[in-house]
């Protein structure tokens, strides 16, 4: 995971919330709570669990994000894959949540990485499947609020 921290193809969003880590953990892992700020879902905090986030369908996208739970380490780390589009033709990312106690609350870091480290060598070629990337581009942009 640490190698992804320097991976330029990743996106990081961070914020300190004035709440304890345990409360953050609940918001991130209890399906009902998760639905209130992310999307409706059938998430369960169990490694290997396949689940979906779902929102209203839009043109070219059925509104479904296919995920699999990869890391459950309460109340510090949570990770799942994040897939949009059908099977092998889809787009795949990893999402990693890291909770760290901070003064007055909890530091929350979300990292979304677009490439696995072993895919980086393909960055300058077409092997990674840029065609898939482009084929699904409209869908993904439509998925952004």
């Amino acid at each position: 995971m640490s190698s992804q921290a320097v991976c330029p193809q990743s996106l990081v969003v961070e914020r300190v919330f004035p709440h304890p880590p345990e409360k953050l953990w609940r918001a991130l892992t209890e399906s009902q709570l998760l639905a209130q700020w992310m999307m409706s879902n059938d998430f369960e905090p169990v490694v290997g669990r396949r689940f979906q986030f779902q929102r209203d369908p839009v043109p070219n996208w059925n509104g479904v994000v296919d995920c699999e739970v990869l890391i459950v380490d309460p109340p510090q780390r949570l990770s799942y894959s994040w897939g949009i589009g059908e099977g092998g033709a889809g787009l795949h990312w990893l999402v990693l949540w890291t909770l760290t106690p901070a003064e007055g609350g909890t530091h929350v870091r979300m990292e979304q990485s677009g490439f696995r480290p072993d895919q980086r060598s393909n960055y300058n070629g077409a092997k990674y499947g840029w065609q898939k990337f482009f084929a699904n581009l409209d869908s993904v942009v439509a998925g952004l609020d």
Partner: protein
Amino acid sequence: MTLPHANHVFRALADPTRRSIFEQLTRQGEQTVHALTRYAGVSQPAVSRHLTVLRRAKLVRHRREGRETHYRAQPDALAPMVDWLDLYGAFWRDRFDRLESLLNRMAP
């Protein structure tokens, strides 16, 4: 990487025929317009127009040799696509706002 350039790249690759030509050049290396025309299954003027769009987006380079023009891919020009991931930042920041408001509503 400037946004106007990113727009060129996005537009250039939004078209399936152009995408297919670009992919062919990436896979096969340098190709003549003739070879690309045979591959693309559209008229040569159409292929030339597509190549012009790809060239403007700096996705391909060309050189003349006799009566043939040879094209090759410039995959480095895909770099703006990576910047595109930043768009997702807006999505997550919005979700963080919603998370914050949920936390304020939750019992301690």
